[in-house]
């Protein structure tokens, strides 16, 4: 951790009367509100159905938003989660089996894609609970590898061919199959994922921030960190499962190649580029990178070089991601406006 250098004399001078402690001002969670509002608009607003590209790209953004949120939840504990595709796959195959053998009811499918990976996350969560930093990252990479290989090796899951020909989800007797409806289902499920994450961070946001900032202190003040860590891992797995459902729903096939280990790295990149202050970070990171990737894809052979360049630039110049950097600027401006005397303080207060 960068050591703190004190450059300014202590502010406490006996002349200033102690300010009455103002009642704690409730801060409005702008990030969360923006994302929920945009998703609700996407759900309800009429969209130009013939603009296939817009509908398809929106669908792709909301499909992988759950995966980015899955990374974001663990990022709140300063943990880089590379195993997201594993839990996407567990959710996806749970839905595929439900659709093929049980029912194509949308609600049952969504529940399956949410509950099964959450339950599967518990044993993996117990393994990773004691790990920190790079170790946690590499082990989640390994979990992604093991789950992928397990799926490929299981005949019941179609092995290398996967499970093709999945029925479109139904709502009552309405079949939700066409392009725009698939996108609406995607937005709805993404909204569910966002609300799930918002609920979890609202309930344990304080514990998450404390464990991220100073785990030892939090412990000695009485915080039991294991339930929080396990809870985070389970919620992360659940929203990954929702994203897995949307991948399968778009492709009408549960195929192992959709959940490759290296795609896990993309989802981490979405959050690191977008920022991890609030759910707005992963949302913007996902939207930006998904749109740019498909834009770059038409550059033919230099597609991956352009994406690589983008990652380099954002890592160098936006170290807290887009939203983090903007939030830091706003906070600095607000602090400078509210207390000019301490403007000189260059305290690097944002603990990475």
């Amino acid at each position, binding site marked *: 951790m960068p050591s703190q250098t004190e450059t300014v004399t202590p502010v406490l001078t006996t002349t200033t009367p102690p300010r009455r402690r103002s009642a704690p001002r409730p801060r409005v969670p702008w990030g969360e509100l923006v994302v929920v509002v*945009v998703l609700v608009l996407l759900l309800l607003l009429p969209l130009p159905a013939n603009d296939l590209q817009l509908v398809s790209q929106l669908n792709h953004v909301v499909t992988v938003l759950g995966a980015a949120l899955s990374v974001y939840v663990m990022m709140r504990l300063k943990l880089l989660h590379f195993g997201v595709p594993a839990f996407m796959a567990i959710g996806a195959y749970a839905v595929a089996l439900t659709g093929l053998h049980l029912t194509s009811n949308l609600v049952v499918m969504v529940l399956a894609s949410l509950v099964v990976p959450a339950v599967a996350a518990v044993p993996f969560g117990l393994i990773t609970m004691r790990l920190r930093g790079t170790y946690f990252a590499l082990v989640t990479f390994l979990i992604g590898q093991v789950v992928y290989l397990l799926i490929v090796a299981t005949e019941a899951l179609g092995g290398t061919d996967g499970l093709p020909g999945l029925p479109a989800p139904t709502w009552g007797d309405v079949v939700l199959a066409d392009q725009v409806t698939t996108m609406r289902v995607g937005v709805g499920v993404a909204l569910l994922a966002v609300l799930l994450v918002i609920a979890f961070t609202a309930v344990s946001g304080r514990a998450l921030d404390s464990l991220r900032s100073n785990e030892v202190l939090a412990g000695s003040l009485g915080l039991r960190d294991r339930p929080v860590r396990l809870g985070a891992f389970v919620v992360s797995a659940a929203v990954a499962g929702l994203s897995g459902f949307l991948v399968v729903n778009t492709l009408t096939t549960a195929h192992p190649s959709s959940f490759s280990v290296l795609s896990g790295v993309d989802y981490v990149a979405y959050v690191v580029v977008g920022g991890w202050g609030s759910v707005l970070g992963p949302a*913007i990171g996902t939207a930006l990178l998904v749109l740019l990737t498909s834009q770059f*894809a038409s550059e033919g052979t230099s*597609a991956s070089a352009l994406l690589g360049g983008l990652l380099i630039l954002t890592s160098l110049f936006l170290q807290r991601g887009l939203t983090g950097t903007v939030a830091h600027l706003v906070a600095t401006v607000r602090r400078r406006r509210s207390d000019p005397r301490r403007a000189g303080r260059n305290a690097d207060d944002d603990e990475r």
Partner: protein
Amino acid sequence: MSFRSLRRSTATALATAAAMAALTACGGGASTGSTTAGCADGKVGIGVLLPLSGSAAGFGQGIRQAMEYAASEVNSAGGLTMGDAKCTVELVDFDTKGSAEQASTGINTLISKGQKIIWGPNLSHEVTAVQPIAQRNGALIMQASYSSKGISPQQPLNFAMVTTPSGFANPMAKWVAAAYLDARTALIVVPDNEGGRDTATIDTKAYAGAGITATTTTYAPGTTDFAPFIGNLLRNPPDLVDLASTPPGDSGVIIKQLRQAGYDGPIGRIGGEATSAIIDAVGSPAGLGDFYYYAAIDSEARPVQDYFAAFAARFGNPPLTVSAQALPAARMLLHAIDETDSTDPAVVAAALEKLPVDDPTVGKGVWGGKDFYGINHEIVLDFFAGRYQDGQRTLTPLSVTGL
């Protein structure tokens, strides 16, 4: 539920909300739909949907080069005559990176850009992802996969640009049985993925038809050292080893290590041709030992060499050899558009079906595939049974077209 604990000093709401909305909206801008006569702003677009990066880039880039060359041929001759307008052919690329998601996003992107004539995709799982969307929007797909679901009567606008194993496996197996009279057993080696297993199934039936019992073994994709795998394989050495559709890099290593392990029986490849890439991976033709392979084209033939030279003259360096295999289909597709003065997929498809398969570079062929796929939408060209012995290459023409 108090959000107080949630308060993040986040960005001003308006700036970010606007950014979010702008970003998601900027993907629009669909150009006009396809036109029957004339062409929008003097151009006819061909949607290229191929893996241009990642592990399948070798095939993807090669197939793209075929269309790139065919288009340059047409454009240098004044372009396509659409009614009274002259239109240049333009390639509209989308890199699928070999993933089903990207292929699915790609087909949507191309169709919404008005490109309903698609050159690609290349891999089985890409075709499965693209198929429902293409069918729903009536797009024509000239794909290059060996997927058993690649073409079918229910998909009238799907074509196969290259001869698939179902077309060449049986005659090749019969040639192999004749060439190696005492061969009774064959071991097919493929990666543990969908493409590998599809080809292995067809080859096994073909060998059975030629009196050779074939068994299949798979290796984990991403294996670098095949020595352990070969040790396992040589415990009871087969008469023949067939690499089917194993990627060229892996094939090279397997051949090198089989020879090092002392296996000097014939090694073959009834599957997608990649001989020149395999020879590079092995290091030299002599390193192959006794090697037989399905040769879609004779790369040393004069017209093919001329094509390589012409491509190099026009684009700077020679093309990947696999591009020659896709050249006939590329020329026929452009010819069908030119003949019908239309880019309407159904119209072009109807014309394409009836075009004779007679390519100046690669030679004659027929529309085949009815017995295996139920529809004659596969360009079946006469091919050769290639064989390397001590570095010397011999080609035996095998005719399936009866021409």
